[in-house]
């Protein structure tokens, strides 16, 4: 089988040596079934062991290997080299995040946001497992199931200019996850979660660029989750004005 050669331009940034990032070009032989991550692994194994990047599962499940490929946030494990045939492929660290080294970004901010929205089922009163499970119908599951497919790859944050301009913005994935629990019929934590998502830097910061939903590799629609959360918040506010004591 004949082998093609891919030209890959990778961002290098070694904070102990470099004051500024720069591009380094590699020529990688590839087969039809190879992805950008395979090329990075080839570079690291055969050409330059100092190249640093994150990866784990190689199959679009772990969400570790995100990068900006030709300017677009993508999973490197899901981007085939043959799709870029005849062009130089530019691989940069995911946009909007601080860079630790080469393609590795600092995920701390996202991790804090993820915990902040309390991504677990909150009950007013927990019951013991012996007392039975919290039941849910297929229709109830359908209300949130797409939002539970998030793999925390952070591509949506790399695609979001609002986050790029204001890092305090809660952002797409964290809100999608918050909405996943808000819409879960077993959850009773609305009163706890609502103030978090409706902060100044919460959902109201979003101006519907919509790119988060375009780049999501798992078909999650964070833009939808954010707007639905806005609608819920607005209707709740109106309800509390019209029916200060009731309405629950």
């Amino acid at each position, binding site marked *: 089988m004949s082998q093609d050669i891919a030209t890959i331009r990778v961002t290098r940034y070694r904070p*102990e040596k470099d004051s500024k990032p720069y591009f380094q070009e590699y020529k990688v032989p590839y087969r039809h079934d190879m992805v950008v991550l395979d090329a990075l692994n080839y570079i690291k194994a055969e050409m330059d062991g100092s190249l640093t990047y994150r990866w784990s599962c190689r199959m679009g499940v772990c969400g570790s290997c995100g990068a900006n490929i030709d300017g677009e946030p993508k999973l490197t494990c899901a981007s085939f080299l043959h799709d870029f045939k005849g062009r130089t492929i530019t691989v940069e660290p995911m946009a909007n995040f*601080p860079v630790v080294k080469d393609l590795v970004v*600092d995920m701390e901010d996202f991790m804090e946001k993820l915990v902040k929205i309390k991504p677990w089922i909150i009950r007013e009163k927990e019951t013991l497992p012996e007392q039975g499970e919290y039941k849910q119908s297929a229709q109830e599951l359908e209300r949130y199931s797409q939002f539970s497919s998030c793999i925390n790859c952070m591509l949506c944050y790399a695609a979001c200019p609002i986050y790029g301009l204001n890092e305090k913005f809660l952002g797409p994935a964290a809100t999608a996850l918050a909405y996943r629990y808000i819409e879960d019929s077993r959850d009773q934590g609305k009163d706890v979660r609502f103030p978090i998502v409706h902060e100044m830097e919460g959902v109201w910061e979003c101006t519907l*660029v919509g790119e988060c939903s375009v780049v999501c590799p798992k078909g999650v629609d964070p833009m939808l989750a954010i707007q639905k959360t806005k609608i819920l918040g607005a209707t709740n506010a109106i309800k509390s004005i019209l029916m200060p004591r009731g309405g629950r």
Partner: protein
Amino acid sequence: MGDNKRYPELKRRLSPGWWTASRHYAMYMIREWTSLFVALYSLVFIYGLSLWAMGSRADFLNFLKNPAIIGFSLVALVFTMYHAVTWFYLLGAISPIKIGRSKTKPWQALVLNLVLLVIVSYLAIWLLILR
């Protein structure tokens, strides 16, 4: 022994021209800018109405017939239509209506809202001018 020193991270900021980086971002930015024309046209229209309120309907109509105002109105119409079309589409994407087991598509909301827009616009024109 390893080097435990933490090196400074590379902070990155979006340049003012970030929206030129992709077609999608540019379309978004144009959508946002069109609201400027919506606002400007509202001001012009409110001024026209004030002429009517303080004078007569003829004052209002003469103001609207001014070539500069007609020119501006045409430009504003184009931008307002772009604004309306993009937002009607988004409305359909955000709030699909469930009919039986299926959900409405964004383009259906777009068409329905455009039809409503034409009807409401005609009513407004009839009420203000044709009547």
